[in-house]
């Protein structure tokens, strides 16, 4: 059912002045911040705390811990695949009733890739903010139509008989890839395993490389 637009905003009511995108964003951003603080719309210390949270506190290390635990503990892995919110709540990253997470598992036969073709939806609580490449037009458009070509650019060549599943984050489900555990890690601790897991492997554009051989 297409909306009738009799009430509420007309979708084109505002296609107008704001389209002139700033050439000197730094000054205009500073001016807006001053205005919002002066009006009491935002609290400056809250802004600082938000920046600190996403620069320093929330990032791919969160997702890496989830992956490492799933590799080590089959019961945890089963919980993670059945109800990611519940399993991730063990780490305190997100509420059990929070935004809906889904974990999709890579196997020898199936390789998963995550994209948001429509904008930049990304699993912030476990990966932090998305990198520019994930938000770029080439990735967004090519990941759905030619995922194998995109993966080749990332250095990953997949066998023809594998199944590639691309997950387009069109709704408020957020996806995390559970990459395959690399060879040569059988004796590693959960913390050591977490140290191996890369952001790119949890988006699905690469695999987790095996640990570097120690030079003795």
């Amino acid at each position, binding site marked *: 059912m297409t909306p009738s637009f009799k009430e509420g905003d007309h*979708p084109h009511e505002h296609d107008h002045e704001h389209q002139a995108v700033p050439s000197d964003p730094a000054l205009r951003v500073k001016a807006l911040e001053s205005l919002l603080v002066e009006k009491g719309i935002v609290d400056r210390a809250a802004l600082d705390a938000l920046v600190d949270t996403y620069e320093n506190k929330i990032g791919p290390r969160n997702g890496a811990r989830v992956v490492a635990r799933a590799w080590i503990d089959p019961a945890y892995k089963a919980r993670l695949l059945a109800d990611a919110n519940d399993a991730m709540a063990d780490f305190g990253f997100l509420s059990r009733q929070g935004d809906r997470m889904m974990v999709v598992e890579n196997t020898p036969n199936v390789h998963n890739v995550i994209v948001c073709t429509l904008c930049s939806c990304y699993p912030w609580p476990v990966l932090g903010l998305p990198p520019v490449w994930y938000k770029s037009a080439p990735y967004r458009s090519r990941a759905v139509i030619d995922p194998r070509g995109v993966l080749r650019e990332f250095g990953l060549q997949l066998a023809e008989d594998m199944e590639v599943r691309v997950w387009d984050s069109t709704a408020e489900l957020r996806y995390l890839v559970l990459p395959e555990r690399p060879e040569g890690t059988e004796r590693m601790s959960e913390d050591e395993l977490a140290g191996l897991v890369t952001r790119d492997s949890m988006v699905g554009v690469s695999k987790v490389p095996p640990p570097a051989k120690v030079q003795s």
Partner: protein
Amino acid sequence: MGPVQYEKNEPVFHAAWESRVFAMFLAAGAWHKWNLDAFRHTREVLPPADYLEVSYYAQWFSGLQDLLVRRGLVTAAEIQSGKPAPGTVRATPPLTPEEIPAALSNRIRAQRNVPVAPLFRAGQRVRARNINPVGHTRLPRYARGKVGTVDRDHGVFVFPDTNAHFLGEKPQHVYSVCFAARELWGAQAPERDCVYVDMWDDYLEPA
């Protein structure tokens, strides 16, 4: 579309102003004068050249200013002058530093605990409707008219097509729908590959 440009060890923000835009978006959003769907739509109405050329956070800045004015938190005159209108009473910000951890753990809140019956079920063959709304939608063009299989029912969520325009939440079921790559892209696509797209009840019809 060209190769994916990859920056090694990319910083979270490439300039301080980006981080301030990001933070202002979240903090001002705590007034609940708009929703995420409306914010997404502000990017969608940018002229194509701006959409492709202008940096991500500069687009966010544009959209944020637009919503602040349109939804009545600031006036266009205040944006121009950089100062509150004379006689403005200072408000109390709804988001304080102490509230931030709790606020972030339930960031979007699009799920709705309402008893809405699903129209489709796992395993069912469905066709994405060929709708082309003037306003906001989350039904990608590449899937319109295509046939897929419902993989699972995720439950009830706010419907973005109406919510973005403040026309109501219209909560309904969202499903992962699996589309074969060949169905979407033609016979040259790999046989086993598929694209999973999350779809609302209103986007689907039985196939």
